[in-house]
């Protein structure tokens, strides 16, 4: 096993980890603000991929160029889901909330299957296609661009939360709903915003993934399990935590697969996850309850 092989694998792990991070950030955002676990999050990712696909297939627009549009569409969808569905169960028992988002997941999958068939689709000849040589490493250009895109989106979300008034209001709602309301913050508006941003993050991840991952109605399932692990590992509600945890999971999965055996790669990630739950239940960067 050469150093080059290790470096190459490490780089691949970081790149897929950045995608995991982006998916998880949306999930952790919704949870942090509303304490609702969104089981339909993988489906937001799927819809983001299909949005990119159809813009490409119908109007020949490259997924990289349409990324802002995809993000906007998913933001709108997130807000809509909040207004039509989630708002009604905001104060319902946790079990009702779980069933509601689970139902949304089935609905979105079913609709996608009904309208777009279960076929695998891919985007051929995107601007991102090809490979890049980087310091002797051979990397797929779509993956590198997706990784960079994930960093940009994460940075934007972080900047929004920590450097803008609206973001501060969102953070305030996340840490204490009642106190925020007393300070004159419209918590319902904040919940809608959280759903919008959460879905938009998944949409961004979908748009970036669409340049190299097959697109099909069940694609969300491939990513959602990892996203839950990442959210837990990073600490529920922590954007920065989800970012670093995403990269960590990506690297551990790939390196563990290479060094111990690919058949164990998921097991290795889940063992780490269990260890964190046992010894640091608040997650790597979560606040202690």
């Amino acid at each position: 096993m050469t150093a080059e092989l290790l470096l190459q694998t490490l780089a691949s792990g970081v790149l897929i980890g950045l995608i995991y991070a982006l998916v998880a950030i949306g999930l952790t955002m919704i949870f942090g603000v509303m304490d609702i676990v969104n089981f339909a999050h993988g489906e937001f990712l799927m819809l983001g991929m299909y949005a990119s696909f159809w813009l490409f297939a119908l109007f020949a627009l490259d997924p990289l160029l349409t990324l802002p549009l995809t993000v906007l569409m998913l933001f709108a969808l997130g807000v809509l889901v909040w207004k039509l569905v989630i708002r009604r169960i905001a104060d319902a028992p946790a079990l009702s909330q779980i069933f509601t988002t689970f139902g949304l997941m089935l609905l979105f999958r079913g609709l996608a299957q009904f309208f777009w068939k279960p076929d695998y689709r891919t985007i051929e000849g995107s601007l991102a296609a090809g490979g890049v040589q980087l310091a002797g490493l051979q990397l797929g250009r779509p993956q590198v661009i997706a990784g960079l895109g994930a960093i940009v989106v994460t940075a934007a979300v972080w900047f929004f939360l920590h450097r803008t008034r609206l973001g501060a209001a969102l953070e305030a709602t996340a840490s204490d709903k009642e106190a925020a309301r007393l300070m004159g913050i419209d918590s319902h508006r904040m919940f809608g915003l959280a759903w919008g941003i959460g879905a938009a993050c998944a949409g961004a991840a979908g748009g970036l993934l669409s340049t190299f991952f097959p697109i099909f109605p069940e694609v969300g399932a491939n990513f959602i399990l990892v996203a839950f692990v990442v959210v837990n590992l990073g600490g529920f509600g922590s954007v920065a935590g989800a970012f670093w945890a995403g990269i960590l999971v990506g690297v551990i999965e790939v390196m563990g697969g290479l060094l111990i055996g690919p058949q164990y790669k998921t097991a290795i990630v889940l063992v780490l996850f269990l260890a964190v739950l046992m010894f640091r239940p608040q997650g790597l960067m979560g606040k202690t309850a």
Partner: protein
Amino acid sequence: MNPFRKSSLVAASVALAFAATGARAQQEIKIGAIYPLTGPLASSGAEMREALELAADIVNNGAKGVPELPFSAGGGLPGLKGAKIKLVFADHQGNPQVGASEAERLVNQEKVVALIGAYNSNVTQTASQVAERYKIPFLSAESSSPTLTARGFKYFFRTTPHDELFVRNAFEFVKDVEAAKKIKVATMATLAENTLFGNEAAKLQAKYGAEHGYSIVKQVSYPAKTTQLTSEVQTLKAANAQVLLQSSYSEAILSMKTYKELGYLPDMLIANDAGFADTEFTKTLGKDAEYVVSREVWALDLGDRKPIIRKVDDLFRSRNKIDLTGNSARSFTGLMVLADAINRAASTDPEAIRAALAATDIAADKLIMPWKGVKFDATGQNALGAGILVQVRDGQYRTVWPFDLASREVVWPMPRWDARK
């Protein structure tokens, strides 16, 4: 269904049956056909049903254009004074319990003399148990699970080759290529998804690889539905085997993309059907799918070397507007074999039909399959069955093995990624 409706239906069908026997002098031979006619496999089921109907039509009414086929003269089964075949279809919905109860119904109420089916291996398993209990011959035309013929059944016959044989074909293919191209293949690796399909295939590949004198240097398995295959491909790259044997469903596309991205390519990738035989595979990957070899049960281009295949496909297409597939071609062949046995038995007694099936000996030139013939061994398995290997050329799957049925010569080794344009 309420009891009254049920009994009135039975009465009606009994009346109809009497009317039918009264109207016709000829005898009708009832064969039960158990297939997935509704549910997720309904579209495959419909094709197989159409193929069985074509076969029955040829036996009953002839096919002038295809003199090679048995019974092409028409006029029913000569051994039974021109008796006609009547297919009685039953829908098992892909459910083993339904399959068993439908088999029960076909035997007890429809009084069929034999059963054919059932596509899904797990349904064939339960339905053939019922047949065995009632001592009615069951012909399995499409189910490829090896365990089916390992049960010691007396009334179970299978025309299609089973999965073990298909796995073995890959090694026979490599042996033939070595001889023809004067090359030496020593090392192989396997990549398989970790559900039953992939695990079984990998185990068989290890066994037959060793038997054929190849060294399996690495066996990699990965979790199905994975998001990335980086470490798998890096492991394969490090193992550097000449041939990669791969068993994947939906990850077939992802794996090919990762190979290209990481610059990995063995001399030959031999896939175990599944995800590689899906039309999405070539459609999605375009020219990156080129030169991949996959095992198959059947291909339309076999007709280039075996005209009987084109002729039967023409008949099929004129009736149904679609071509035969590996499934429907095997269903067609299954019913032809069954008809041949009933004809030789010259009787509708299931015991006589069983004996005739056991004595079946049909030559390769009477079949639309790439087989060496049909002849059952002691377990009821057709000992002369064989699969084929196809290679993607210009976006189409072309038969490349066995060499005497090939429509294209195999390209070996696959051109490197950077040497392609």
